[in-house]
């Protein structure tokens, strides 16, 4: 026997570990809290120095995020009938009236369509390719896998100009389809590699048992491999979504109107009404939500996925 044994950590050790985790969480969450708080500040509170920790929350940022406004003279304002909504009232405090909705909603929807669309495609194609690489004799398998991985080695922006030119020829500039294809192409290497790792871990004996039990190879894939790969598929989906959701450089370059996603749009809010930090913060806060929700929905799988390789055998 060695002097070490695997036992429960002592209470002191547990407390120390807990404290460290909480400290780390606070440090990493601080910028996030800052953004969320700024979204509820008034423009003057947002830029006050030293920063205000206690402030009177207001919805101005959110109203400005979702609307476009025009300045009117105090006389015109006085002639108007009283505001009939709470957000009208907020806007009029600044001698302005609401001119219409902003483009944030559309851009957000673009992000959803492109983010989830490309995630679905990456994971779908990745699963099939990973299964083939894992189970079949693919000619030049190792070279192909390396080639797939090598597409990750260069910074995506290195190919920005050629892609821009190709997309222009193909009419894919500023289209949802174009962005979905682009993000799928970038994510596919990650997806194939991650999923191949997960599928390699599923012993082939289960499929063989299913073949004996009267199923075809495809049915065995669906009934036996897919359920066991769920963990890997979920974690891969999260990674793909995070990339597609946050991608900025290509979005700036390739989209300007119809298919513009939220990341290039949010900074432009600043210009609309001077230094409108609360509106930017509000836009960023809302933008965080979908990935957060998606990750929370899949968190059980994700946790098991990350520890997958360590637990088996």
């Amino acid at each position, binding site marked *: 026997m060695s002097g070490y044994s695997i036992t429960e950590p002592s209470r002191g050790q547990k407390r120390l570990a807990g404290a460290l985790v909480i400290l780390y969480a606070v440090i990493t969450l601080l910028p996030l809290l800052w953004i969320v708080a700024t979204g509820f500040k008034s423009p003057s509170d947002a830029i006050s120095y030293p920063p205000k920790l206690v402030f009177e929350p207001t919805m101005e940022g959110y109203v400005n995020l979702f609307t476009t406004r025009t300045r009117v003279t105090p006389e015109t304002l006085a002639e108007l009938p009283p505001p009939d909504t709470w957000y009208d009232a907020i806007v009029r405090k600044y001698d302005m009236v609401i001119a219409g909705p902003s483009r944030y909603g559309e851009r957000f929807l673009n992000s959803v369509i492109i983010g989830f669309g490309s995630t679905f495609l990456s994971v779908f194609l990745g699963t099939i390719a990973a299964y083939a690489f894992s189970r079949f004799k693919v000619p030049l398998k190792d070279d192909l896998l390396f080639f797939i991985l090598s597409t990750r080695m260069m910074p995506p922006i290195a190919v920005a100009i050629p892609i821009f030119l190709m997309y222009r020829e193909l009419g894919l500039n500023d289209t949802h389809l174009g962005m979905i294809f682009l993000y799928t192409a970038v994510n596919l290497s990650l997806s194939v590699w991650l999923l191949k790792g997960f599928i390699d871990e599923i012993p082939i004996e*289960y499929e*063989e*048992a299913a*073949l*004996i*039990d*009267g*199923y*075809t190879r495809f049915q065995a894939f669906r009934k036996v491999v897919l359920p*066991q790969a769920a963990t890997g598929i979920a974690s891969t989906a999260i990674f793909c979504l995070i990339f597609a959701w946050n991608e900025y450089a290509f979005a700036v370059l390739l989209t300007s109107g119809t298919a513009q996603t939220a990341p290039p749009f949010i900074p432009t809010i600043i210009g609309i009404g001077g230094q409108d930090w609360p509106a930017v913060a509000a836009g960023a806060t809302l933008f965080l939500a979908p990935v957060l929700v998606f990750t929370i929905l899949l968190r059980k799988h994700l946790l098991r996925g990350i520890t997958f390789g360590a637990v088996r055998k």
Partner: protein
Amino acid sequence: MAEVSLSGITRRFGDTLALDDVSLTVPDGAFVVLLGPTGAGKTTALRMVSGLDRPDAGEVHIGGRPVGGLTPAQRDVAMVFQQYSLYPHLTVRENLEFPLKSPLLRTPRAEIDRKVAEVAGMLQIAHKLDNRATNLSGGEMQRVSIGRALVRRPSVYLMDEPLSSLDAKLRADLRVELKKIQADFGATLIYVTHDQVEAMTMATHVGVLDQGRLLQFGAPREVYENPVSIQAAARLGQPRINLLPADLFGDAPPRAATIGLRPEQIEQGAGADSTVVRVERLGDQTRLHLIYRDHALVTVTDPHTPLGPGDLVPIRPRQPFYFDAAGARVA
């Protein structure tokens, strides 16, 4: 149910010859036991029949039909895997239902329930039906794995050491059940085991494999009483056959290099003296460890023997086997 035949089956894995020109015919309704040390090619032989693997040369026929181009599903075989291979994401019940629900069988619900209940009862796993398949002991997994084969009535059952991790009582029960199923349904069964009791009690035929070659194929008594080689002789018999220099007890036939003596081929009370080293009482058997002219040998004796260490027992061979230098039987 169907006859299964292998003709000239060869399978290589790199430099390993897993099966070397194996030919054998399993008659319809036979219970064939494949014996052989680890790595002999037993599992590979089952995989050839199941269609999970293809031979490099040779042909497999099931029911007189060549099945070379058929998938495992089309061959209609059921297999109990050596490593269980239960579907980990399903419950025990779902594992047992899985083959019945296949697109091939599409069994009606009532029939599924009836068969699952019947098999679960027989294998004594009825109380575990709603457990996760991963949440079982090794013996229970093995029973579920047997059950997944037994819910079907395929043309041939393939079983790879199906009783290896069960306790003695359950193993004895299941031996009887399997034999009964085979007899009742006239099932054709190819069965791999290390256990000589299983081989002797259940088999209609025994095949002895060693290093990919089929050394002998025949009725268990015939393989036991008339082995073709040292390897075949060593597969059956407890205690193992004693292998000694051919001339140890006097004249040997020409070319004989080794004499083989099973306990019943050692006559006690006549011949030259041997010294008792140890008396081993196993309950159902009492073994005598002897030294004869500097060679150790083991035989069995009367349970009430008065012999003890140091005593002298005269012994001589009775109708022994003789093998040549290569291990082939010469007399």
